[in-house]
């Protein structure tokens, strides 16, 4: 009987690959690892690990309780490690997200609105963060969320810190 072990990563255990340059610059591949990025991030920092013009993928260290945020369009949260509670609230005033906003905006305190529900998501679970709602994340233990969104005012770009720049990966 064949037996295969599927290898996922986590904050505690990940094995990074890398770029072996033959005739190129390693920076062109913008190579990083979401667990390494999250392991060095502050809770709920939105660190871009992928950028495609206005679109980004953000690696977020989930730890404790985040502030409330409201997206300007649907966003999608994929839990890569840990267990994350996602609280959703239907905004009484969707105008808290100014017209023309990209990504999401932070909200002061708990916004006015109706409770929509809660999702408790673990590794591999993807949750819709719908436009018109606000969301708050909570994680009792450190976890990692990958967020599909647009670059916003709070998106952090620290490419030189997170990406491989040498022609070979670190041993």
């Amino acid at each position, binding site marked *: 009987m*064949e037996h*295969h072990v*599927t*290898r*996922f*990563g986590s904050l505690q255990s*990940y*094995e990074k*690959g*890398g*770029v*072996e*340059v*033959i*005739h*190129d610059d390693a*920076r*062109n*591949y*913008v*190579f*990083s690892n*979401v667990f*390494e990025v999250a392991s060095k991030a502050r809770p709920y920092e939105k660190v871009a*690990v*992928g*950028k*495609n*013009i206005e*679109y980004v993928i953000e690696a977020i260290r989930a730890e404790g309780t985040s502030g409330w945020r409201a997206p300007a*369009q*649907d*966003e*999608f949260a994929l839990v*890569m490690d840990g267990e994350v509670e*996602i609280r*959703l609230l*239907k905004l009484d005033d969707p105008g808290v997200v100014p017209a023309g906003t990209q990504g999401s905006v932070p909200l002061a305190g708990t916004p006015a609105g109706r409770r*929509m*529900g*809660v*999702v*408790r*998501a*673990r*590794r*591999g*679970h*993807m*949750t*819709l963060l*719908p436009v018109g*709602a606000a969301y708050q994340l909570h994680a009792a233990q450190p976890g990692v969320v*990958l967020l*599909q*969104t*647009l670059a916003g005012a709070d998106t952090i770009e620290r*490419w*030189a810190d997170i990406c491989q720049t040498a022609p070979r*990966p670190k041993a």
Partner: protein
Amino acid sequence: MSSTTTAVPEIGSIEPNRHGYRSFALGGFRFSRDEYFAEVRWPKGHHWLPVDAFLRALQRDIAWGFFYGIVNFDAVVGTVNHYGSVDLFAGRFNDHYRKAGLDHSERFTTPLIQRVFEAMLDDWTNATFDPFASPQETGSAFGPKNGSNKEAITRHRVTARRMVGAPGDEPVRTDENGFPVNRHFRDVPQDKPEVLAEPGFEDEVVAFNLFAYLSRSDVTWNPSIVSVCKASLYCPTTEEYILPVIHGNDRVEWFVQLSDEIQWEVEDRDTGAVRARVTMRAGDVAAMPADIRHRGFSPKRSMLLVWENATAELPQLYASGKMPPTPVAF
């Protein structure tokens, strides 16, 4: 380059050859197969490909609607998508063919080349062969004509409008709807997120287990849309063995390795000169620049998130040089 061809009177021979297969014509190109090989002929040359590799590439080119940019079947033959028309080429992206003046390219309307390719795939795929399956999960493509496998080559391609599992959108995969867990992913947890929606919000509080969903994929190297953030498309896929095409980018594409390992060979898109090897393990993120072509190798079935920007203007912006081929500068 000739002008765009829109119609041909007959797309394939009526009588099969001695191996039982029909031959096909598309402009100046001729296609035929025997028990082991597909042969492609054009006015200045000819080329053989192993027929299993040819059918795997042909299957993906059709299923992906000719995809983003260039689909190289191998180092010689392939297609370029112009989103409404398609170039079929031989040697166009091979430095030696180009320098020798032996390359050839013709442009066809998408419906025409699709019709010919679909007819060829249907006629040349035997009952024993599934071009989407990994080599260990399918029978042989070789030998004389032996039935057909219409069900395998006309699979539904998942294109979520918002997110898989959202109301009215693409369904999650289960045993009951015909997607058992793959043999390489039997250890992948099948738990569901706990979704506690308040009354009236059942359609907006939605989540699903993406990793379990991928563990039940019955195909390999077939990116399919699971979530849509405007023009940002998450297109995860499960990979095993070798990517059957060498994908030439017409825009920046991103990979997030969700599980296991893939090695990528990266070459210059236009000449095929080797540029880099990229090893990706779980949690790794890498960009594929807009001026490269790449081919992946996955020794165990793995989960790969392919991230695409479907903005229609991108190919022109990159081709004109208005957009740099790499996504960020640092």
